[in-house]
């Protein structure tokens, strides 16, 4: 039968429509990893994934599911896909899909979306999740994950962090697959993961040269300032970096690498970065915490000592508010403290800025002056390294950690910042909140508490 002109037109239009939309006919096995979100700023985001065969990379996105009107791609054939979207609108929800040619591998469904951060300095609510030493890939890690997902069903995770030892025992690609990519697929595709390097990750990575598995897997802001990810200084490396999210300046450090020239470069960068920082909140994290009597002892082990003696004075003189660490597989938390850089037996009341619990349900929140970066107004230190397992402790409390012995309990940290109020909680794997503290930046309150 001879086709009619009408039929031809219809077919052509159909073909055109099909070419414009991704088609979902790929074999599920083609997608081995991801998609996972990286290196997010108010206007940019990198999306990465891995395929079993070398194919080109395609990314579709838009403000409504089913209307992914924007497309970007790379024609080179690869199994490791990484595409960066630019020109995004801040504080906006986007839906996306990934694939190759016109083949959709994942997305264009209710679970593939991301929210861009607000402009730097804006004070919109921010909620983030922190995992420490989560890399076991076992049932303990699963329990911690599920407790968080259940706790957060109605609330967003704007960003999330790993405090190091993200994949045991050697931080290999296979271990990352099971401990990270197979463990947190849902959150990886919706919220940007900001990792920290731990001693186990470093077994297959070299921070000095920025090479190895950890550095191959993550895209991090080594040029944060010059690419608009932060208001600080470019670190020139992915080993340590900073970025801004709303009114918060996040600093991620490498506490594992011991080469003196590396340590000096990190310290010099930290000083410049903090000098330029004007955010309301400054939050720093690294793997080896400055104060711990958990499965590690910060009085003995050299990496803890280095961070306490050399990094803390710089951070505190630039008004850091919260410091997070792992390595000890337990939970410990300080008062609002300042100026303690020595052995635990030298800690005394002079170092305590506020000796309350910081829990407004028990006594009062910690109060600090409001102007973003003020020197030596007190910092809360947290060890949260029990997101994958717990380990035996030293059997004594570190005096800086409120004289409370390390808690051998599986869990993770949930932190919420709303304007000038920060609340952090330790969420146990059984869903219970074990600890809660609030820090408020308020002039009137600060002056009152100061007068008291």
């Amino acid at each position, binding site marked *: 039968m001879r086709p009619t002109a009408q039929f031809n037109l219809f077919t052509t239009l159909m073909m055109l429509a099909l070419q414009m939309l991704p088609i979902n006919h790929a074999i599920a096995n083609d997608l081995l990893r991801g998609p996972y979100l990286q290196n997010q700023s108010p206007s940019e985001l990198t999306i990465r994934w891995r395929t079993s065969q070398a194919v080109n990379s395609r990314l579709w996105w838009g403000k409504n599911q089913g209307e992914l009107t924007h497309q970007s791609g790379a024609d080179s054939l690869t199994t490791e896909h990484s595409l960066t979207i630019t020109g995004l609108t801040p504080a906006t929800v986007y839906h996306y899909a990934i694939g190759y040619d016109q083949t959709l591998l994942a997305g264009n469904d209710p679970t593939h979306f991301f929210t861009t951060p607000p402009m730097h300095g804006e004070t919109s609510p921010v909620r983030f999740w922190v995992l420490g030493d989560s890399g076991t890939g076992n049932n303990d890690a699963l329990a911690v994950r599920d407790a968080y997902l259940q706790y957060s069903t109605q609330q967003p995770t704007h960003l999330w962090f790993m405090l190091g030892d993200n994949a045991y025992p050697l931080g290999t690609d296979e271990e990352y697959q099971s401990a990270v990519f197979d463990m947190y697929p849902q959150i990886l595709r919706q919220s940007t993961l900001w990792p920290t390097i731990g001693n186990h990750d470093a077994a297959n990575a070299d921070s000095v040269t920025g090479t*190895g598995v950890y550095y191959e897997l993550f895209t991090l802001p080594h040029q944060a300032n010059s690419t608009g990810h932060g208001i600080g200084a470019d670190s*020139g*490396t992915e080993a340590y970096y900073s970025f801004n999210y709303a009114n918060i300046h996040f600093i991620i450090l490498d506490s594992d690498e011991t080469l003196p020239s590396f340590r000096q*470069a990190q310290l010099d960068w930290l000083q410049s970065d903090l000098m330029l920082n004007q955010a309301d909140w400054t939050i720093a994290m690294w793997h080896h915490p400055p104060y711990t009597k958990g499965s590690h002892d910060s009085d003995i082990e*050299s990496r803890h000592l280095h961070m306490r003696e050399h990094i803390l004075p710089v951070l505190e003189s630039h008004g850091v508010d919260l410091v997070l660490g792992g390595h000890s597989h337990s939970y410990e938390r300080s008062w609002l403290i300042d100026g303690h850089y020595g052995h635990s037996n030298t800690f005394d009341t002079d170092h305590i800025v506020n000796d309350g619990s910081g829990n407004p349900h028990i006594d009062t929140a910690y109060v600090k002056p409001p102007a973003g970066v003020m020197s030596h107004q007190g910092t809360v230190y947290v060890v949260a390294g029990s997101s994958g397992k717990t380990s035996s402790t*030293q059997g004594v409390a570190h005096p800086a950690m409120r004289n409370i012995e390390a808690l051998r309990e599986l869990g993770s940290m949930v932190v919420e910042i709303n304007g000038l109020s920060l609340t952090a909680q330790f969420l146990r794997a059984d869903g219970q909140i074990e600890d809660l503290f609030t820090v408020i930046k308020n002039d009137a309150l600060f002056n009152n508490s100061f007068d008291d």
Partner: protein
Amino acid sequence: MYQPHYRLGFLRYLLLIWMCSCALLASAHPDLNSRQHHLEQLQQTTGQADWIFAKAMLYADSDHPGLALEVLKTLTDKTVTDPKSNFRMARLYLRLKQPDLARKYLLNHFKKFPNAQPDITISTHILLAEIAVRQQHPQTAVNHLNQALMLNPELPAHLYVLTIRAMSMANYAATEVFETLKTGLIHHPGYLPLLELNIQQAMTYSDPCIIDQAIEQLLKQYPRHPNWQNNSGRSTR
């Protein structure tokens, strides 16, 4: 019939040594109990060299450098059959303040593994440069750093700074230093130490235009930089 029993006996002997060392370690540090599990995993999943190396690391991390060295010495040229272990061993020797042994294994890398992945070769050059700087051999350091940067010009920015400092120590001509600075700034346009070194280097030319250009380059990246935003260090045109 005899051989399997002999093997079993030998394995038992190995296991006993390992358990004793773990018990000893555990008494030195409570967390070592939990790390025993990791060692078990390592022993099952990795080669002998990896396992011995992990044990040495455990001693080093637990403030037992002497024991770490003893364990490390059981790793010989025969057991180190891959470039990664060779490099790790050198790293650990350097950490244990044995730069000569570290250098021996690093130089071994070029001889034994000429076709190794560039990443490990680069890391080897960087460590050799670090040792050379410590031993006051800036020219050797420059050579190694240049080779590393040639293999991968996008290496972390601080390595350009190290190279420039070593070049200054080795009395390189200003033009050569400027070339390295220029390359560094192409790959790391916003790295402050490089931008500041660039201003310092420009000052050696005593040409106000070159100095102004270097300051402008920094201010383009950091308009709010307190040391430069008022152009206080600036020359008069």
